[in-house]
């Protein structure tokens, strides 16, 4: 991945894969109300994809310099499996961890290339993922950690 378009295509594909992942899990989900939650997650990923498509088409700019709050919630949680009887809490953990992994991937990538437009774009993608992580972590903070 040496060009801006290549990296954007990769990121767009990742968002699509995430949406497919949640949609597939929604088909299997057994617990009450979980289908809808997972379909909402899939929609959220599709909105990320749309945003990146807009970046690729020059209709939207990434913000590599933006400071994004890191709640560090997912960093200390255990890995959970995407089982058929997945709970809300675990679905959120999976979502937070996926966003975190993506954030770390782009951050590492950016660290290993010299200053360039490409580096800026990759840093911008990292910030996008940090925002997604914040979105799911805030959700976890509000819905799971209510009494905590």
């Amino acid at each position, binding site marked *: 991945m040496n060009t801006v378009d290549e990296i954007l295509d990769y990121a767009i594909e990742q968002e699509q894969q995430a949406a497919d992942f949640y949609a597939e899990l929604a088909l299997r989900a057994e617990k009450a109300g979980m289908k809808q939650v997972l379909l909402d997650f899939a929609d959220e990923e599709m909105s990320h994809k749309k945003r990146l498509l807009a970046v690729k088409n020059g209709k939207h700019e990434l913000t590599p310099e933006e400071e994004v709050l890191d709640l560090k919630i997912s960093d*200390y949680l255990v890995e959970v499996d995407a089982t058929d009887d997945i709970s809300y809490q675990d679905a959120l953990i999976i979502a937070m961890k996926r966003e975190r992994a993506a954030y770390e991937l782009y951050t590492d990538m950016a660290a290993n290339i010299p200053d360039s437009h490409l580096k800026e774009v990759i840093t911008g993608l990292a910030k996008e993922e940090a925002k997604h992580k914040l979105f799911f972590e805030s959700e976890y903070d509000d819905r799971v950690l209510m009494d905590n």
Partner: protein
Amino acid sequence: MSLKDLLSPFFVWQRAFEKPWTNMRPIEERPGAPAYRGFHINLADSCIGCGSCHTICQNEAIDMVPVEEFSGRPGDSGLRPRFDYGRCCWCALCVDICTANSLHMSNEYTWLARDPTDYHFTAGVEEKPWQDSELGYHRAEGYHLYPPKRIDMDMLTADESVQSFDEVVNGYSEEQAKLEADRCVECGICVATCPAHMDVPDYIRSIRDGDFETGLQLMYRTNPFPATCGRICTHRCEEVCPVGITGQPIAIRWLKRFIVDQVDSIDYARILDSEIIENGHKVAVIGAGPGGLSAAYYLRKKGYSVTVYESQETGGGMLRYGVPSYRLPDDALDKDIDYIISVGVDIRYNTIIGKDVMFEDLLGEYDAIFLSTGLSVPSSMRINGEDHPRVLSGLQVLADVARGKDPGIGRKVAVIGGGNVAMDAARVSRRLGADVDILYRRRISEMPADPEEIKESQEEKCNLVEKAIPVEIMDTGSKKQVTIKWGEAEMVQDPKGGRPRPVLQEDRMHTETYDCIISAIGQGSNLDFITPAVQEQLAIEWGKFTPGEYQRSELEKIFVGGDVANRTADAISAIEDGHHAARGIDRFLKPGAYAEN
């Protein structure tokens, strides 16, 4: 007639061209004395429309009228006083009684208007020149027509209370209760705020009248758990009590308890029973918590045959297995439940729906189902090491204690969480002889637990550690101990608004070893007993139902309520959900009876 008389009209004409002698304002204008009782000023924004001014006015010069801009404000009737100056005698009793201290009088006393109806005016809402006047009659600082302080409740001291599971609150004597009841201004703002809309002013009046039986009847109209709610209700009524604006709110909860404590349960049937006319319909209720039993009681009163299915060996739900006996003794809860059973509610204990009896069978067998199964699954922290045997759940510890079982917590305990379950688990641990640290992610001011519980847990020497985020549980090598690693948090403003969020400071970590860790970070529902095909048809969000009108679900036979279907998750809301659902089921099964409404 003399010539002079004859000519005088012609001389008068001379005067027509002179300066007039009549003054537009015949008297030199004199300002009212500084504390004069002149026209009223109402700070309409601070006023909550309690109507005390209207009630006290001996001349019936004050009407309470709706004012659009104040309607729907919490703890506000949406009404404001309108004065009729044809009737007012300027006695200022209205100012003296005003609970919000929003009503004053200016020293203005002249007002000219052609239309007599102009002298009816809604102070603070209609613009008047004296609205901002500083002068005029104001109630003197510290002067109250009713005592602003509530009658102190006799309670065990913190040192005494941790020695046993005895009830901490002793209750009012008759003399104390009457004095406290005397402070009520009977505004009824509490009625609108109480989820069950209990008729508070009237049952408080029954205390003043010494007529406790009427008080009990009034309470049972909307709440068949008065002994319970008189002890542990979240008492939102007191939060809006206008007497609390300039003083302390009426102790509504303790007064409710006082009434129930005055009536022996043997007399309940005589006081409360009314003829039940069987209507031939059968309703099943799942869960014998306050939600389920409230529905069962009101359905039974309407003539339904009601069967309650309960997985535990006795009724009460979380009131029995969650709320500890030092706040709600078993005999108080039993007083409520025994009367519900006595009207003919059949409870099948030790019966798990989904295992012993299938949900589909109930759907076939009964005309309607009310489901109030609560939140029984403790949330997990999902941190490393959490499955350590010395990590216990708060709900389990409380249930063990309720059943008289030793939960085996040891002598040094950390409780994780800041809700009521955490506070109860901590206070129970103190009674079992342990030293307790409560670790909470946010600040004390943000704890969801009842402020009273927080205060009492601190008095009982639970050590509250705020801004502490657990990150890992570690084995110590001993079967009797466990170590927790937690980090300090900084509170950071959420860029999107909302409550500040705790952010872990990874350079400020601590480790501490305890005999056990009690996790009490929240609880969720278990709806696995509902077959997937039925679940698909019900609106369930984040493990909770989102009922429609009259607690009805998407399936016309199924009604839902209590913790599993509301946001407030307290007893009084569950009780109201049950009552509401009973009315809904009645409408559903006897549509003809409501056709005209």
